């Protein structure tokens, strides 16, 4: 059985398309039998295209918020505001300088609503508003109204600007490869989303082996990265491309083995079935059964999307901008978007594989509460699952941003050593744990009551022990050095040998 959701977009679309096709079939004066023969194909075609459009729009709109989260959150971590560009600056000009009531230039008075809206906004959040006055004083984009979403439209402005920039191809660059590389990266990255179910009934394609398909496509982008680095005819980009290729190949393998563990545990290569297994059959999220797998997946995914601390390919310090140094304008904007899409896909996959996909946390537990359970269940059933999925993805991405703000960058050889010497064996261990759980512990209907708590408690204990050791180690390093004022004797750190 599959988890259900009232937001049945696939069903609705197929229903709509089927109905319209039937009407067309009925209204056809002739060739009805021939049309009937091609009608299923036509329906599939049209409905698939509609679904793809919906999924793409959903992905892009939510991606906008993703970049916004990054800028705002890292800004707050650094005691800054982050971007505060508000949409209102689109029709009122720049700190006093405006082009007048430009909406009156529009013909047929179609600009009247804009002027009306501006009047209303001025009356609500105009210069008489105290926040507005403060914002004017320190020249901020905040206009006192929350639904203008200060900063959210910064990304819109960026991409509009990228679109209007000149396109420069370096003289000695390999033009064809230089042009094709962003296309490869972007296309494969978007293709990944075709196999990501945003809900039980919101997916563009759902083959039996969608997991393998997704991972295979996810691994194509490094090729484009290498193309980009090589074709720019620039030393920095070449080094960046090389590093990227080495690092991504080093982290693909543990990633795949970890995902294989998830597949073994859930007994399917289909993402939707994996989520359904967590929701319906086992009533337990995989993160409680495979905590090690979750950690490995997160680390390898951070490395795959090349974020700090694993962002060697675009290390600003030594390689100016890494493998996209030579790219400017819209190509760079597209690759920039592709980077965020990869991060977004990583968060979504983690939520799907380990966090129960589109299920509200502890939904069944809450629903089984004695008195209020029914009410909670009915309330939760009103909320479509895609909301929970995207919320989980956002929280995970905030974690990515947190890591980026608080960690340094690892050297190339250290990255590769970490990948090959620690992550690979750990992922194999994780696979063994998954096989054991599936074969021995899994009764067929449900997990024994001890399974999830025991495993998660063991993982928690291990993590705490490791963290304590880590802290001792760090303290030993960061003890006061030998100093005449320092009373305590200096500790010979590990690096002194």
């Amino acid at each position, binding site marked *: 059985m599959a988890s259900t959701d009232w937001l049945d977009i696939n069903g609705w679309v197929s229903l709509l398309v089927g109905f319209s096709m039937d009407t067309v079939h009925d209204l056809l004066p002739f060739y009805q039998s021939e049309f009937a023969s091609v009608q299923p194909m036509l329906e599939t075609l049209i409905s698939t295209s509609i679904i793809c459009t919906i999924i793409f729009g959903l992905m892009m709109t939510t991606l906008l918020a993703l970049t916004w989260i990054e800028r705002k959150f890292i800004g707050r971590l650094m005691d800054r505001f982050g971007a505060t560009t508000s949409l209102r600056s689109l029709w009122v000009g720049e700190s006093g300088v405006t082009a007048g009531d430009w909406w009156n230039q529009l013909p047929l008075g179609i600009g009247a609503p804009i002027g009306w809206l501006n009047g209303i906004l001025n009356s609500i959040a105009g210069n008489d508003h105290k926040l507005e006055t403060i914002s004017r004083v320190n020249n901020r984009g905040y206009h006192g109204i929350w639904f203008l979403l200060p900063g959210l439209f910064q990304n819109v402005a960026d991409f509009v600007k990228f679109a209007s920039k000149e396109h420069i191809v370096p003289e000695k660059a390999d033009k064809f490869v230089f042009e094709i590389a962003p296309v490869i990266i972007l296309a494969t990255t978007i293709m990944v989303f075709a196999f990501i179910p945003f809900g039980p009934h919101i997916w563009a394609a759902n083959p039996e082996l969608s997991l393998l398909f997704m991972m295979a496509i996810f691994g194509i982008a490094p090729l484009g990265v290498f193309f980009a680095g090589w074709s720019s005819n620039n030393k920095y980009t070449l080094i960046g491309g090389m590093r990227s290729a080495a690092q991504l190949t080093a982290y693909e393998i543990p990633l795949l083995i970890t995902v294989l563990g998830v597949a073994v545990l859930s007994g399917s290569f289909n993402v939707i079935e994996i989520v359904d297994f967590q929701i319906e059959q086992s009533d337990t999220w995989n993160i409680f059964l495979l905590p090690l797998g979750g950690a490995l997946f997160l680390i390898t995914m951070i490395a795959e999307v090349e974020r700090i601390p694993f962002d060697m390919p675009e290390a600003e310090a030594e390689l100016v901008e890494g493998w996209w140094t030579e790219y400017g304008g819209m190509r760079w904007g597209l690759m920039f978007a592709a980077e965020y899409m990869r991060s977004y896909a990583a968060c979504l996959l983690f939520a799907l594989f380990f966090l129960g996909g589109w299920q509200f946390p502890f939904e069944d537990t809450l629903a089984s509460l004695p008195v209020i359970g029914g009410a909670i269940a009915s309330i939760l059933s009103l909320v479509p699952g895609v909301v929970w999925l995207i919320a989980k993805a956002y929280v995970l991405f905030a974690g990515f941003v947190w890591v980026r703000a608080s960690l340094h960058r690892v050297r190339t050889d250290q990255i590769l050593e970490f990948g090959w010497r620690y992550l690979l064996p750990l992922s194999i261990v994780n696979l063994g744990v998954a096989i054991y759980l599936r074969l021995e512990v899994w009764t067929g209907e449900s997990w024994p009551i001890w399974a999830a708590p025991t495993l998660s408690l063991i993982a928690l204990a291990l993590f705490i022990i490791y963290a304590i050791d880590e802290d001792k180690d760090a303290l030993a390093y960061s003890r006061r050095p*030998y100093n*005449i004022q320092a009373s305590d004797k200096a500790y*010979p750190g590990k690096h*002194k*040998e």
Partner: protein
Amino acid sequence: MRVVSEKTQSAAAEKMAKSLSKMDGVEASVNERVNGTQTRYIVTVDVDVENWRATAESLRNDHEVDYCSMITGIHWPESTEKTWEIVYHFLRTGVTDPAIEEGVVVPNIVDFSKVKGMNVPLELQISIILGDTRTPSVASVQDIWAGADWNEKETWDLVGIVFDGHEGMRRVLNPHESPAGFHPLQKQHKLRYHDHEEMYDDAQGFMRKPSDVGKVK
């Protein structure tokens, strides 16, 4: 804080000056300088050009002067007794590598209030005077003090004093394509607007002299 006492410093300076004066072509003296509220003693040495190399080696080996601070070249076109002067500033720091005991470095903390002998920090100011010549040249001490390497490069680049035996002499501050023999700190090179006194008092240049007509403002 434990600092070097003036008595120790003056005694060590006298000692070094006496022993340096024994060498031929070298006159060394100690002069007392007051800066701020403190008094310090500097060993000022005048060396002939041909004795400079031997003096430098004895400084490094016998007197443990281990730190070359600065090399200054001065051009005296109007002066009668000297046309070029090269001034070396040295320090005697007495710094040695810290000792290592059972795999741990033990920093050597010098108590400057009771240093003695060769460990007393000293300042040296050595001046070499050259006569009227187109190509002033002096022996290089690049191999004695590695710190003198780029100092000599800079001195040649800016002042134009040739250091014999210097390896890899090149322009370090001026552009590489600047003409040969262009050494901006020589006195015949004037600054831009050097004769426009009104550059200071009227920036608009209302009071320009007729002689300034045509000159870039």
